[in-house]
C-alpha cells in the first residue's frame, strides 16, 4: 500500500521559501502569480498486512502516528494523508 504524505505550513506561519519563489516568478514575467506556498511530500510504502486484505484505516492511523512523531512538527505544520495505491487481492 502506498500513501502520499503532504506536509504544509500552518496558516500564519511565515513561508520565506514560497515568498521568495513568488518574487522570482514575478520577476521572470509571470505577473499573475499571486502566491506560492512550499510543500513537502513523502511517498510511503507499507508492507501489506497479514490475513484477509489490508485494513486501510489502520495503516492510515499508523502513518498519522509517523507524522506526529517525525514527519511533521505540530507547532508549525499541517499534514494530509492520501492513499495512492492500495493492494487489493
Amino acid at each position, binding site marked *: 500500500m502506498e500513501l502520499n504524505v503532504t506536509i504544509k505550513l*500552518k*496558516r*500564519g*506561519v*511565515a*513561508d*520565506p*521559501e514560497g*515568498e*521568495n519563489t513568488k518574487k522570482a516568478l514575478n520577476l521572470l514575467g509571470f505577473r499573475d502569480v499571486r502566491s506560492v506556498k512550499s510543500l513537502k511530500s513523502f511517498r510511503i510504502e507499507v508492507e501489506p498486512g497479514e490475513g484477509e486484505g489490508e485494513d486501510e484505516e489502520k495503516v492510515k492511523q499508523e502513518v498519522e502516528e509517523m507524522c*506526529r*512523531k*517525525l*514527519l511533521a*512538527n*505540530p*507547532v*508549525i505544520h499541517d499534514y494530509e494523508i492520501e492513499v495512492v495505491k492500495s493492494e487489493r487481492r
Partner: protein
Amino acid sequence: MRTPKICILRIEGTNCELETSFAFTRLGASAEIVHLKQLTGAVNERERRNLKDYDLLVIPGGFSSGDYIRAGAILAARIKGALGAEIADFIENGSPILGICNGFQVLVEMGLLPGPSFGFAHEKGAIQRVALTTNDSARFECRPTFIKHENRGKCVFTGGIEKGSILKMPCAHAEGKFFIAEQEGEWGEVMEYIQLLEESDQIVFRYVDPEGNYAPYPWNPNGSVYNIAGICNPEGNILGLMPHPERAFYSFTDSEWSRRKRKGEGKKEDTCFGDGKKIFESVLNYISKKSYL
C-alpha cells in the same frame, strides 16, 4: 577533585564536535566524543558508554542526518526513542545539557526546551508551542552576531557572565527562527508566552546590534521573535542557543581579530580567548560545585 567528564554526542552529520571537545579540554575537563550508538548499546562491549557516567551532555552543531525532514528532527526522534529514559534521569539529576545550533533544534524538537512545564512535544495533554523554523531570509545565514546576556542567574551556563553584557559569536544556520505558535491567531498570545518565559527567567540570549540595541535583520539573522537567540529550561540546567560559542573560544577565530589587535583593544587575557569561553567556564564551575555538594 574529580575531572568533569563531558559527553559530546555525535551521529552522522554533526560537525562541531571537535571544536567543542577542544574547548572543554582546554579548560581542563575530560571531553569525549561519543556516538549515539555507543550510548544505546548497538556496539561491542568495549565501545559501550553510559550516559550516567558523564557530568554534561553536549549536542553539538552540524547537520545531523543531513537536516532531512527538518533540522534536528531525526536526531531528536532517535534520542527520544532509544535514550528517552536515560535522558530523563540525567536531567532529573540536575546534570546540564547544552545544545548548540543544531543541538538547540534537537532540544526543541524533543520538547526539552522551553521545558516540560511548558509541555512535552507530542505528548498527550501538553502542547509544544515553540519551534525553530526557516530563517526569514530563506537562506543559510552565516555571520558574526552580537548577543546580550539576559538571564537573571538561573541558567547554569552563564553564571560567570554579567547580565547585560554583550558577547560576539558567529552563527551559521538556515533554520534558526525562534517561533511561537499562536493558538487563536492572536499576536497578544505570543507576547503573553514571552512574558511567561521572561518571568521564569528562561530567556538567556537575545540578538542585539554592537551598541546593545535590539535590532532587526541583519543583527537578528533569522527573524526570531523577540530577538531570542538562546533559552534555558525552567530549572536552568538545559541551555540551547543558535550562535556557536565553541567557534568564539579563542579570540583569533573572531573575524575582526587582527583589526582589534592593531587597535590595541582589550586586555591581555582577552587577546587569547573569545567570548564563547565564558559559557564553557561557567558550566564547568557549576559541575565542580555540584560534585562537591
